[in-house]
């Protein structure tokens, strides 16, 4: 059972993907059953595993491809953190996507790649070695490309091209870094930190930079973020998935793995690369917020907000103090919950009211109360209003910054909070306080779209309120840091 479980976990998305490609366009019931069935099964497996891992069980499966080229799937606490997020949000996004697309064209292709994308994310989370991480990282690039291009109109195809143009050089950098490192240390497993003494510090710094470039493209680190706003041309469920779980998070997760499981916090400090990374992350946080302020389209503003928010995770990793690590890890979950809520709502505004631009939201609060309320919760959480999810992350990041002896980070957090407020509060003001424009109408009588948003909004409140409980994301992040990386 210990080897079968990770494979089974991968198969819950891989098998539906394989079958869905061959389904006829109009076999909606079968396709939806496959998608939802896979998602539910995966959730069940993960819940079971959460208990088992808390009891100290370990799961591992290994597939040798060639000498040095081994796919290793392994369940550890960090993997579980990411995988529970992706499985939960995948389930909700699937419901949302089924309602969103209805009976539109090319659905078998869409859901095929959708599942494949989730399979790649699962594999990424479970990867126990650098090279398996790379393989799933690439699989993710390949499987999200058709999703970005899904509408096949000019902006989508351009977005897909831009995505590829950023992602492939990023992968080349990542592969370069991996092989360079492994040529000195042998295959790197995440369980045992590699012996870095065979490489001189200059080479190690270069390798670290290549790693950060490789995963940073996906995490949207400025200046590697250009593809992310362009990818807004994709359908709403894809944006939601891209921003909350799949691509951007894969990048952030990669940063965490590289910092903690490849280099280790001590080596990072010794090499003096932690502070530069923290500066890049801080710059991204500010720059993303400033750019978000300049956007008139809802989805574009959210996209730049993602650029900014994901770097909180990078910042937490770069500061390398236990509390900052907790803050970064917990933001992996919290940002996912909040951002997916916002994207769900943006999609509902577009679908049910035809509103794409921010100035079209005037007075929608009364027309679409559920959607507007969820959007407001997500936005307030992003700003960091206590006791919502975002506050918890920021609190820990702030404490961690002090602990790491980097008080300037507090200024960054503060500035980011103000900027977040500056670009979210006007939207809330328009929603609730401005009168409805003449001729504008909307409703949220679409349970398939609204219920997922309500669930994630409730979770945004819940994880903040229950942060002190051991089963909350914060509790789990604390467990990871104290068990795995603590001093």
């Amino acid at each position: 059972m210990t080897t079968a479980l990770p494979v089974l976990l991968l198969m819950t998305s891989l098998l539906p993907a394989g079958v869905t490609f061959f389904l006829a366009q109009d076999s909606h019931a079968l396709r939806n059953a496959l998608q939802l069935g896979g998602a539910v099964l995966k959730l069940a497996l993960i819940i079971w595993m959460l208990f088992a891992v808390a009891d100290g069980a370990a799961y591992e499966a290994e597939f040798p491809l060639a000498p040095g080229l081994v796919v290793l799937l392994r369940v550890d606490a960090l993997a579980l953190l990411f995988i529970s997020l992706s499985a939960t949000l995948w389930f909700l996004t699937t419901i949302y996507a089924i309602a969103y697309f209805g009976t539109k064209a090319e659905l078998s292709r869409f859901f095929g790649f959708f599942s494949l994308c989730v399979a790649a994310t699962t594999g990424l989370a479970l990867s126990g070695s650098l090279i398996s991480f790379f393989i799933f990282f690439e699989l993710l690039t390949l499987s999200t490309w058709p999703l970005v291009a899904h509408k096949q109109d000019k902006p989508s195809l351009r977005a897909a091209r831009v995505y590829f143009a950023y992602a492939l050089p990023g992968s080349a950098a990542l592969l370069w870094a991996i092989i360079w490192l492994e040529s000195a240390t042998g295959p790197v497993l995440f369980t045992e930190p590699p012996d870095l003494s065979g490489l001189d510090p200059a080479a190690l710094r270069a390798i670290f930079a290549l790693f950060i470039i490789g995963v940073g493209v996906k995490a949207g680190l400025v200046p590697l973020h250009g593809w992310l706003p362009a990818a807004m041309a994709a359908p709403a469920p894809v944006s939601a998935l891209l921003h909350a779980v799949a691509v951007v998070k894969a990048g952030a997760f990669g940063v965490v793995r590289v910092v903690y499981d490849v280099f280790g916090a001590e080596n990072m400090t010794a090499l003096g690369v932690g502070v530069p990374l923290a500066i890049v992350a801080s710059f991204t946080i500010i720059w993303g917020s400033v750019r978000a302020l300049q956007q008139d389209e809802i989805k574009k503003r959210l996209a730049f907000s993602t650029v900014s928010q994901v770097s909180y995770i990078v910042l937490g990793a770069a500061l390398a103090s236990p509390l900052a690590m907790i803050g970064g890890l917990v933001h992996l979950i919290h940002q996912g919950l909040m951002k997916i809520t916002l994207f769900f709502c943006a999609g509902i505004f577009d679908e049910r009211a035809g509103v794409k631009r921010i100035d079209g939201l005037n007075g929608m609060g009364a027309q679409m109360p559920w959607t507007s309320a969820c959007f407001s919760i997500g936005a307030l959480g992003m700003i960091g209003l206590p006791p919502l999810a975002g506050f918890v992350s920021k609190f820990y990041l702030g404490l961690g910054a002090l602990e790491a002896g980097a008080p300037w980070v507090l200024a960054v957090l503060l500035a980011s909070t103000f900027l977040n407020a500056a670009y979210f509060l006007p939207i809330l003001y328009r929603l609730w306080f401005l009168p409805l424009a003449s001729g504008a109408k909307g409703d949220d009588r679409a349970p398939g779209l609204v219920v997922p948003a309500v669930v994630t909004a409730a979770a945004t409140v819940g994880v903040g309120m229950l942060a002190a409980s051991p089963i909350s994301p914060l509790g789990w992040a604390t467990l990871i840091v104290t068990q795995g990386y603590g001093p």
Partner: protein
Amino acid sequence: MTALVAGLTLPLLAAFAAIALPMRARVPAALLGAGLTLAASLWLAVVVWQTGPVTLSLGGWQPPIGIALRADGLGAALGVMTALVMTAVALAARHEMAASVAGPRAGFGFWPLMLLLWATMNAAFVSRDLFNLYVVLELITLSAVALVAISGKAEAIAAALRYLLFALAGSLLYLAGVVLTYAAHGTLDISLLAARMAAPSDALALGLMTAGLLVKTALFPFHVWLPHAHSAAPAPASALLSALVPKASLLILLRLWFEAMPDLAAPAALLTLASLGAMAVIWGGLLALAQARLKLIVAYSTVAQLGYIFLVFPLAGGDGGAQVWAAGAWTGAIFQTLSHGLAKAAMFLVAGIYLVAMGSDRLSDLRGMARALPMTGFAFALASITLMGLPPSGGFTAKYLLMTAAFASGQWAWALVLAAGGLLAAAYLYRPLAAIFARESAVAPRAIPRSWQAIPLGLAVLSVALGLLSSVPFEFLQIGRPDPAAEGL
């Protein structure tokens, strides 16, 4: 041993049948021959897997008097790849001939030429005698040139003539090298040459043979004949020419440098070979980027993809052969050979389907083909993943192994070539992919049976599966792998 003989004689018999039998029976006979040869190749691979290399001395005469045939892991693996590509091409050609009004010459000439090519390729994979290899190379060249010219169009004849001139020059160079070797050592058997006493003429002989083989392999700067020859042929023939034919001369190069005369592998020579390969990767990629026709893009990509294989020389040849990374580099090069063969054949077969469906292979005419013929779109995309070297394809395994060896040996420049080549491949394949997957389709294409569309898809899936399941092929290729450290000194 029976499998070895069957792999050589069955395609020859089928070729004769495809000429001699009455018109109606020719195609069935050719297809039957193809099926049987495929079975023989698989059987040979199983035998090699179970019992190690299979050796056969013709007529019972041992070298140096007789000629030896030997199927090792490398030869048997190439034999299986060839058999898979040949079978797919045979099936696709049957569809294509039914769908298009081929001239009488194409219908008459294709089957015997294809089967003759198959028999001679198999002979090249197992032959251990340099003169025997010369004869085999000549036969391969002649059938390949004839396949280029088979349509009878003026541009095809011109391309075939250019090919013929290059190939004949290559043959002469190779033959000169063979003569020198025989004069010095009195034998042309590869295994006996490995144990020879070094002679002063050896370097010249090896240089001449290598130059001849480079021309035939179309390594930069000798590639000028290849793109037009490969794109002028009918699509199934192009698949054979691009996926298989250069691999025969390439294999002989490997046998010369790694088995017969590894002691002559001076660093400068290895560096030259790899530099030419690197230039082929870059130059072929850039030219592929500039083409407007699908078949030309795919043909120029062959120039680039063959270039990677030459990186094996400094990574696993000469003194490097004794190092720990040599096995990885050598196997990586063979993985590239195999996965390129499968993926490239898939691409040409897709191009052939588009030519029948749309009457054109200009990218501007192919917009939206994936919507009309989804399986071909998937096939092209999967084959592209292999050529770009993205995981989890066979191309990725190849590049990973080569790149690891480049880093382990401290020869970073070659890793840079691999990375740049992958990005270039992504760039030049993105254009056809974007066209095929575009939304609009101008004209409704002709209907193409699904059984035809499935053929390139099958090959493309195999090229990816080679990466997913690479541990067995990796071990298989180690069977009878030359060990220059032991044999050379």
